[in-house]
């Protein structure tokens, strides 16, 4: 299994090292300036090591925020404790942040003045069937927040054909619920809806896209996979606080929120004219936010003049790109930027490769068309019913990955 784990800074200095056996063979991942490396010479599952390193990053991030050299140096005791818990003799262990946080706290370990009760709570959690939630949680207001976060990915040919598009989405839930609630989550999954009979099928044909075909999905460990397998219902006992309930992917009928139309004209050898039009393609009542269009410029750019109707645009020499930012944009609108790029004459005969224009945005709907239909909460032991739970649902569609 894993023979050792090291954390390096960008200069190659070891910040943290933990050696289990004398092994060689590297796996490493990078987070900002920090390298996490695992070594082994055993025949491990390669994906597992990477997966573990990323898990480790997540756990550390959950404990002290950004992973930076500074933070790691400040928290190395904590990291050693975490390592103790999640990597025993090179074997990855329970790496659920929620569970870890109950007995390894940010202030170091809780002192031994813990009451007996607390202790038994911790132990039952570590050892119990439901490792991700402890008993006896109480809230005055039972609330839950559902975020449907989707990112649209698009692959286009240079000719402007859409080669493939998919949405990878996440359903993130923040639960503040008392007791051990049993939740059931429903969305407009095509398979489920079709199953539910013909009554709804008529509706589907009337109002078009009522249900979506989910290509494939993964769940948090709290979701009963067997139940999903047999009846495609998503039921679970949620961990307390924030967690990612599921991830999914769709490839069909994706609403592409924007269209970018670039026009590039090379005027002589030292001048380039770029015109980019973006069109928003959704309901006029909705507002897209944080729009950022990044137009790459050739390496030998000497000066840029930009005119845009909306938002701010700037040429960033360090990034070799014109960055155009628009704070808000309503649906079914159009906006345009034109730029004149001055080039330094070079000997290089190579044509400018015209790298892709990239765009970031946030739209308040799910590009895949996913809708949350219900989220039922049952808590058999405590006295609150499904109606008492306050639910908040939010859809965010983003660009990329």
């Amino acid at each position, binding site marked *: 299994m894993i023979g050792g784990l090291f954390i390096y800074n960008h200069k*190659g200095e070891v910040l943290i090292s933990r050696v289990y056996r004398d092994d060689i063979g590297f796996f490493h991942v990078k987070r900002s300036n920090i390298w996490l490396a695992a070594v082994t010479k055993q*025949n491990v599952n390669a*994906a597992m090591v990477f997966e573990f390193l990323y898990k480790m990053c997540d756990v550390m991030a959950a404990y002290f925020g950004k992973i930076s050299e500074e933070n790691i140096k400040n928290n190395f005791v904590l990291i050693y*404790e975490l390592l103790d818990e999640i990597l025993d*003799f090179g*074997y990855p262990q329970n790496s659920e942040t929620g569970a870890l946080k109950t007995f390894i706290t940010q202030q170091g370990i809780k002192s031994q003045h813990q009451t007996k009760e607390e202790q038994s709570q911790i132990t039952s959690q570590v050892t119990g069937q439901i490792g991700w939630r402890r008993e006896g949680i109480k809230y005055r207001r039972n609330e839950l927040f559902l975020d449907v976060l989707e990112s649209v990915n698009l692959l286009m*040919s240079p000719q402007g054909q859409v080669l493939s598009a998919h949405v990878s989405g996440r359903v993130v839930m923040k639960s503040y619920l008392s007791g051990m609630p049993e939740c059931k989550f429903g969305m407009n999954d095509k398979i489920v809806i079709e199953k539910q009979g013909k009554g709804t099928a008529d509706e589907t044909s009337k109002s078009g896209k009522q249900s979506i075909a989910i290509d494939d999905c993964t769940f948090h460990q709290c979701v009963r996979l*067997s*139940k999903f397998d047999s009846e495609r219902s998503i039921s679970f006992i949620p961990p307390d606080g924030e967690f990612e309930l599921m991830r999914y*992917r769709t490839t069909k009928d994706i609403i592409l929120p924007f269209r970018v139309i670039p026009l590039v004209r090379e005027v002589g050898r030292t001048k380039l004219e770029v015109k980019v039009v973006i069109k928003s393609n959704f309901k006029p009542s909705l507002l897209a936010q944080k729009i950022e269009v990044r137009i790459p410029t050739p390496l030998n750019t000497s000066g840029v003049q930009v005119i845009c109707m909306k938002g701010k645009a700037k040429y960033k020499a360090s990034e070799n790109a014109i960055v155009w930012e628009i704070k808000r944009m309503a649906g079914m609108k159009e906006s345009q930027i034109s730029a004149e790029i001055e080039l330094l004459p070079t000997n290089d005969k190579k044509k400018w490769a015209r790298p892709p224009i990239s765009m970031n945005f946030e739209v308040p709907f799910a590009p895949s068309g996913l809708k949350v239909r219900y989220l039922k909460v049952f808590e058999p032991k405590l006295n609150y019913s499904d109606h008492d739970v306050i639910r908040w649902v939010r859809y965010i569609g983003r660009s990329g990955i």
Partner: protein
Amino acid sequence: MSSNSFAYSEPAGGEATELGQEAAATIAPAGALGLFSSDLKKNEDLKQMLESSKDSAKLDAMKRIVAMIAKGKNASELFPAVVKNVASKNIEIKKLVYVYLVRYAEDQQDLALLSISTFQRALKDPNQLIRASALRVLSSIRVPIIVPIMMLAIKEASADLSPYVRKNAAHAIQKLYSLDPEQKEMLIEVIEKLLKDKSTLVAGSVVMAFEEVCPERTDLIHRNYRKLCNLLVDVEEWGQVVIIHMLTRYARTQFVSPWREDDGLEDSGKNFYESDDEEKEKADQKKRQYIMDPDHRLLIRNTKPLLQSRNAAVVMAVAQLYWHISPRSEVGIVSKALVRLLRSNREVQYVVLQNIATMSIQRKGMFEPYLKSFYVRSTDPTMIKTLKLEILTNLANEANISTLLREFQTYVKSQDKLFAAATIQTVGRCATNISEVTDTCLSGLVCLLSNRDEIVVAESVVVIKKLLQMQPAQHGEIIKHMAKLLDSITVPVARASILWLIGENCERVPKIAPDVLRKMAKSFTREDDLVKLQILNLGAKLYLTNSKQTKLLTQYILNLGKYDQNYDIRDRTRFIRQLIVPNEKSGALSKYAKKIFLAQKPAPVLESPFKDRDHFQLGTLSHTLNTKATGYLELSNWPEVAPDPSVRNVEVIELAKEWTPAGNAKAENPTKKFYSESEEEEGEEDSSESSSDSGSESGSESGEDSSADSEGSSSEPETESGSESGGDQGAAKSNSRAKGKSDFEDGKKENGKRKASNSSTAESSSTGENSSDSDSESETESDSEPRKVIKEKEEKRKPDRSPNTKTVSLLDLDDFNPVSAPVVLPTPVLSPSLMADLEGLNLSTSSAVINVSAPVFVPTKTHVLLHRMSGKGLAAQYSFPRQPCIFGDKMVSVQVTLNNTSDQKIENIHVGDRKLPVGLQMHVFDPIDFLEPEGSITVSMGIDFCDSTQTASFQLCTKEDCFSVNIQPPVGELLLPVAMSEKDFKKEQGKLTGMNETSAVIIAAPQNFAPSVILQKVVNVANIGVVPSGQDHVHRFAAKTVHSGSLMLVTVELKEGFTAQLIINTEKTVIGSVLLRELKPALSQG
């Protein structure tokens, strides 16, 4: 001491971290000395801080020390000061001391021993977390002296009440093993014990220990196999990975291959296996038949939901499991999950893509629908781009090549030149693989020759060169085209390649080649060295083939070359001149110059770099690196014949008692008595008991009222009793003489009663004897001889018997005779009138055609219907009691035992929605009002499976919940045993030949050849009746299918050299072949 420790620790630290060494190398030299001295000082005040009474100071000191360790500095001299604090009350300090101890205990063993007692105390702590962490640290201290203490601690912890501690015990096993491999045997014992653990927490860890300590001991897994499969979903994710890998290896040693040999590389099978049923039927027609072991199926089924796991490692593990052990037709389901993983981190992506690349070489079809997912993005790193390209190449076929080529066109324009070059190579590979597009690819590549980028052009030329080399017949045109290109192309590599091509094919383009040489001669001095060399080669080749036109040109070039600046070119010139231009000094070689220059050059092979990776287990490090990693365990090839599947059976009788207290008690009784009974006891009593038992059973079962009859039907239960006692005896392996005798006497009595009339009884007793006695055997033989005579007589008599009998019965007889033999033959000895009476009474019996006999007792196998975890405390098991169903005679009776494992009453347990395949019917149990905590209840159900192994799915509902459950019958439970004489058996067998016969040869261990063992093994697999046999090397069994009542005849014929012929005759060929598959391994195993 301290200097000593230095010597120890330094190399240890260095060895441990290669990178660490590097890092140290860059930093250390700068101020090694200064650092060292300041260290010494610092250590002094650290010591003081550790001695202080304040926890905060100690904590601070410990933190600094641990920081030193992290940076690879030596802190070993602080050992005594640190160890004192191991007993500190402050957990935080304690933890840090542990970190320190684990690092340095090995160097300072004597001092480390001081801390041991603290751990020993902690091991007894009431808090399980403390026990666990004490064990963890204790086992991490690598001091050989404490091995016995560790061993003891592990043993104790493995029996701890807390599963968390047991889990840590499992981890400690590996640590102890790496410290002292001598302990292996003892550790294996602990592993064995922990493997039996039912906690999901322990399962993952103990399998890790198993993999490390004794991966070869598959025998430890047998009994836990099913449990592990069932627990798998609930085990934590890292444990899942390890378990899946282990089970993959296990399955490869224990089950026969589900792959058909003619499957080849491409999945031709996929098209024609639409459904499982169809697959079965198709397989039937094939000569080779394969039935998957239910355990094999169990593993495949239980891992499937894990494809949805969030953890990429788990998904990868399941994918490799499917790849390595599931039938080819089912591997496809993993592709979707793998494609999904492409959305994760790029490192994971890399690993996954590598695996996909390997898979896609063998199975194009799997990933074809996802072709577009492998399109390269401009933002992908190069390593991923090239892998994707590799996959795209593997997936290319006639249908999608045009789309792919269009995509490739884009890639060629990529800024990433390495990638562009790789793309061109890919195009070349596609061109060679798919002959339809070779020309398109070639022309495409030729177009690329005019590309401005050097690498692209060079690569294109090289690829074109390779392509042309492969099909030397039809490329005159392209060579001409390339010759024209020589004027425009400037890249030396490309020019050189073109010249080489022309030279190589100079005889095919006789007009162009000299002209090219002429042009080249003109520009010779201006060319690149690489090109010059090729010009020389071209000249030499032309000189040899076409000296008339080119002699002067070549000599001119050779002259130019002679005074070239580059010594390589001068050398080459000299060499060529000596070789080709004949002069007085030229040696023997010049004769062969033509052969040397124009030898047939082997065409380069364009193949995937992943071609040879598939011999590594997918998903492993070895596969990723394409070299064997330490501890790599080869996946064994499938065994030819599956080892005995029964080894995986858990103690069933115990279980049966535990779970089905009400239902099985009755069935168990006779055997229990049988086992306990002393051998002197009367066999007759035994047989009479069983006969009455079976008699009543058969009466109630088939609803026959035959028992009312005096003679003919009384022979029926007796027949059964005979066979049954034979079977029981076999089961008990009693070879006592007394028993055999009594049995025999019993038989003789019967024989006396209706001597030579009903052969079955005599035969059954002879079966009993074969295993028991030799002197009684002689008697049997003498006995059997007259019987044979009578048999012949009987046969003669049969046809003329019918006119004598009364018409009603006669018609009936005639009616059913051709269909299948009546098991109870009317005894010819009786007077015709009595016989007629008899048959009249037998009417109802004969309409059932075959008489059902009592089943031979076997321990009941229980199957889990609903696990208590998923059932929220409600657990359900089901078993097949092998009794005819009371709800309908086409149904198989199923006993369901419900347990309430929760601490609350479960109310209103009933069966909810049913999802039954067409034709299946179900009779459910009456709703149960409530079930007390810890209570259990057994209910019966009837299911008509329509003689198929289709799954009956339904919902088991309580007041609050509904749980979906499945019952899938083993094929052996779809049968009801039938009593039959040998003769009838043979007759029926004669009717069921050809398509209705399936057979197999098995090789079995010698001990399996005892008749009792064979009997036991066969009835274990199927609910089937024993047919008395006259020959001791032939064993016959008969049964009928529950739904249609078709006969199922099984013959086991023992041959020399421990082989046996297994023949099954039945109309239901599907069931027959399934049964054959299940019997085969059962009989062949030791």
